[in-house]
């Protein structure tokens, strides 16, 4: 069920808040140092890093999971960073935060999945994967003085014998299951949109689910015109292994609800699109993105 980011600690008194802020700097050097109010500030700072990353969204129905992300490039000259990774035919992950950390964790997840398939000749159940990820990769890093928490939040979407699942893994080592969730910058706007609609997701068709994902992405853009080059969308489901949607498919969905702005700016838009198209071609298809990771 949808819920806002769960705070590990609750504070009932404002005074405590003030005091905590005053002492914050004394207890936040080490991840292995508790604060007097029972908080691990390094872990909380790691969760802040997730909020700084560009948005990632996940939603699921009974039979499908859609992961979507916003393509934000550092500058006009560079290509955007890959934020959605295939872990296996039946599992995908979208990340927000330190993408380098995310790549490393994706590699770990892929390795776990392959090893499980090798030993048991069957696909790794999603729930098992997120537990291993939370315990081994994330929690451990909050309890060793020579390590630091991973600064990345992961939306793990997958399909197994018990159906479709969507999990969110925190840098703290906590994980939660969701019907739909959004992380990263301006994700609150997407979450508000999803909160209004999530009750219908379970029975949604694949197409409606994709449309909702793209609409949620639009919420995070806050005014910017939604173009297929700005987002990456991936789908997986029963009889449908994890794959990315190509630019044309995404644009078709956008066209169903963004007709008016397209017509008005036809002349200028077309030109800009043509120039942007060759550079962005690899975006959703992910064939031209340099295999820099691993």
């Amino acid at each position, binding site marked *: 069920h949808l819920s806002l980011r769960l705070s590990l600690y609750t504070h009932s008194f404002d005074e405590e808040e003030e005091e905590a802020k005053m002492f914050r700097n004394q207890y936040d050097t080490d991840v292995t140092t508790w604060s007097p109010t029972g908080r691990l500030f390094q872990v909380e700072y790691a969760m802040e890093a997730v909020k700084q990353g560009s948005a990632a969204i996940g939603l699921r129905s009974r039979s499908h999971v859609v992961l979507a992300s916003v393509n934000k490039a550092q500058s006009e000259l560079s290509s955007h960073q890959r934020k959605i990774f295939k872990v296996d035919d039946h599992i995908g992950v979208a990340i927000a935060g330190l993408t380098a950390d995310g790549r490393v964790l994706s590699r770990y997840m*892929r390795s776990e999945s392959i090893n499980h398939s090798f030993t048991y000749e069957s696909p790794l159940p999603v729930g098992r994967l997120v537990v291993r990820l939370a315990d081994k990769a994330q929690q451990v890093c909050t309890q060793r003085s020579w390590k630091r928490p991973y600064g990345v939040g992961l939306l793990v979407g997958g399909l197994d014998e018990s159906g479709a699942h969507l999990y969110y893994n925190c840098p703290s080592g906590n994980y939660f299951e969701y019907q739909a969730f959004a992380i990263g910058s301006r994700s609150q706007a997407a979450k508000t949109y999803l909160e209004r609609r999530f009750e219908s997701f379970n029975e949604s068709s694949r197409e409606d689910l994709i449309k909702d994902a793209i609409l949620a992405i639009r919420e995070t853009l806050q005014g910017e015109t939604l173009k297929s080059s700005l987002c990456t969308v991936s789908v997986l489901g029963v009889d449908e292994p994890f794959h990315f949607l190509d630019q044309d498919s995404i644009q078709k969905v956008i066209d169903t609800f963004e007709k008016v702005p397209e017509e008005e700016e036809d002349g200028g838009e077309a030109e800009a699109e043509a120039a942007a198209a060759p550079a962005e071609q690899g975006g959703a298809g992910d064939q031209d993105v340099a295999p820099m990771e691993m």
Partner: protein
Amino acid sequence: MTKQHANWSPYDNNGGTCVAIAGSDYCVIAADTRMSTGYSILTRDYSKIHKLADKAVLSSSGFQADVKALQKVLKSRHLVYQHQHNKQMSCPAMAQLLSNTLYFKRFFPYYAFNVLGGLDEQGKGCVFTYDAVGSYEKVGYSAQGSGSTLIMPFLDNQLKSPSPLLLPAQDAITPLSEPEAVDLVKTVFASATERDIYTGDKLEIMILKADGIRTEVMELRKD
């Protein structure tokens, strides 16, 4: 006092024969479907051909438990490759991987006699033939397994592979057309079945081309 020898062996030979022929734009990989142990038949319907990648197909005779284990390792390694490089492994790349994997167990080898067939990066057929510890060579055609000694001389006669020592370097690809090569394979297996007790039952043929893989099955003598 004579040395005591082990009365248990970790290996067994399940018999069978594998053949592959490379053409200009196709590759034919064939194997019989009989699995034996000693003088008994375990099953008449076991496939010795395994697709490793879109353009690479492995056929192995020998100890099928080792063959299965080897296939699993290669499949996992291929997945890792796909994650890292965002594409399927080419046949020459798979050939090298197979060689390395076999040599890795140099001192407790996979009892597997392999023939790897597929299409190279230019779309031409290629066949790689191996021994049990990974020594391999790119050839135009090859046979491995219990019937190989019966088949290989006949393929040499029909396909006459040029010597790798000749200059200029000549391709080992056969000029035969695809239907001709398939026909040759059927003939060759029919003959081997006559004299090799471990070869027979059914013949499974996989034809690899740029547009996909086609499979044919032919009956063989069951005695």
